């Protein structure tokens, strides 16, 4: 933690460029976080207007992704960052991509909400959407918080939470299959909920990626494709 600081460069302009990367990523994260919340609400409350809003905001998220990538390229080209500065730029570039994908998934959920409004409610699965939605929103919130504070321990917790999301997803899928077998006429509507859950699960995966990038940023270790317990022992053992 003590190594991670964005300020105190001899070039103060460099300080502000790195701080801007962090601020812009957090701003983008905040928008995606809200997008996910609105998308889940639009399913729960059958709110097509809210769903339309989620879809509209996607353009803004895309623009932010491009702008942040551009900023990262500029810092790499002009400052040749090293060590923690280099890891920050690389982590921001990767996290931006994950956030953009998360925005895409939120947009898919919003489209399912509109489709459900047109075709009528699904036979079930709303409780699961709410539950998984809450889990995933907490993960996103904690991941952004861990990034703001350069907190690797908190990032490990985010990675662990993804396991629970995966378990919930599997059990919700089994339940929806039962509905579909009971009443084949409900299949297309049940599929809408299934796709929603699938998107939430994907958002969980991207958030876990973000958590891994944060650990890379703070600790300098690459923990991709490792089990949560391995990650935890590495982070705490450092």
């Amino acid at each position, binding site marked *: 933690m003590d190594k991670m600081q964005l300020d*105190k*460069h*001899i070039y103060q302009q460099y300080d502000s460029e790195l701080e801007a990367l962090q601020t812009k990523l957090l701003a983008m994260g905040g928008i995606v976080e809200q997008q996910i919340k609105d998308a889940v609400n639009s399913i729960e409350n059958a709110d097509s207007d809210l769903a339309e809003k989620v879809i509209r905001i996607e353009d803004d998220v895309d623009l932010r992704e491009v702008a942040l990538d551009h900023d990262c390229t500029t810092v790499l080209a002009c400052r040749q960052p090293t*060590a923690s500065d280099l890891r920050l730029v690389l982590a921001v570039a990767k996290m931006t991509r994950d956030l953009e994908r998360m925005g895409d998934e939120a947009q898919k959920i919003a489209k399912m909400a509109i489709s459900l409004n047109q075709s009528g409610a699904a036979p079930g699965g709303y409780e699961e959407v709410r539950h998984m939605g809450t889990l995933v929103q907490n993960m996103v919130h904690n991941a952004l918080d861990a990034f703001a504070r350069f907190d690797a321990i908190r990032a490990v917790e985010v990675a662990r939470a993804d396991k629970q999301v995966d378990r919930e997803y599997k059990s919700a899928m089994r339940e929806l299959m039962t509905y579909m077998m009971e009443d084949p006429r409900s299949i297309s509507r049940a599929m809408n909920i299934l796709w929603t859950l699938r998107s939430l699960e994907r958002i969980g995966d991207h958030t876990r990626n973000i958590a891994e990038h944060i650990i890379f940023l703070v600790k*300098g270790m690459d923990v991709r494709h490792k089990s949560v317990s391995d990650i935890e022992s590495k982070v705490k053992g450092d």
Partner: protein
Amino acid sequence: MQAVNQNNAATDDSAELKLPSDDQATQHKFDGKTVGHPLSDNPKMSMRNVNVFYGEKQAIFNVDLDIAQNQVIAMIGPSGCGKSTFLRCLNRMNDTIESCSVTGEFILDKQDIYHPKQDIVPLRARVGMVFQKPNPFPKSIYENVAYGPKIHGLASRRAELDEIVEVSLRKAGLWEEVKDRLHSPGTGLSGGQQQRLCIARSIAVSPEVILMDEPCSALDPIATAKIEELIAELKENFTIAIVTHSMQQAARVSDRTAYFHLGKLVEVNDTKRVFTNPEHDLTEAYITGRFG
């Protein structure tokens, strides 16, 4: 003489430059124990417990370091940190400075280079040096390269000498540019060419180790790139220690990087590690440009 001036210059600098003075150094504690891997399994040179004084002032404190065979080690650190002083101990360049005293063990292939019976002329043939400013002799290109082999008696016939000159200039990447004007003065070459001539001159006596003290700081980027390219080729046959102020240069050319701070060796690690995830906070602060 030059090192004395250098030392004075470093002291003078501290008035104007922002050195890692006490207030900054206290932010990052250094307990005196080098972190990382200062020692090597395959050392060409081994230094132990090195202390260097200029009169009363201690310039190097208890440094242990191995320079591995056929590797490039870069020594980096802020002005006045002792990296050049340390480099100059490796072929006893500091002997010429009266006020300078060196203690500790310096082993080159199991041989103590500070042994009282060690003759420094053959030592400097084994451990060559390239300086910051290209310093060709005021002689022809040919004579610049042939000078060393002649005084060390490496060639008995003219043809042998010609061959040494050609091979050295080829290894230094200069042959194609000068082969038609070997007898024109070395000082007539461009800065980058002069520096490569100096490298040719130092490799003409078949050294085992080449010390480079900021070899590119007086050169433009293209000449710098050529020297760096050359360093990568030279390490197949030689062991190289380079002192540089350019951290990017250290990152590009070296296998291992040693970070010096206020006369102490703070960290030695693989260069890749140092520039992505340095072990010590002081190294981190220096290479990310937070003081210097």
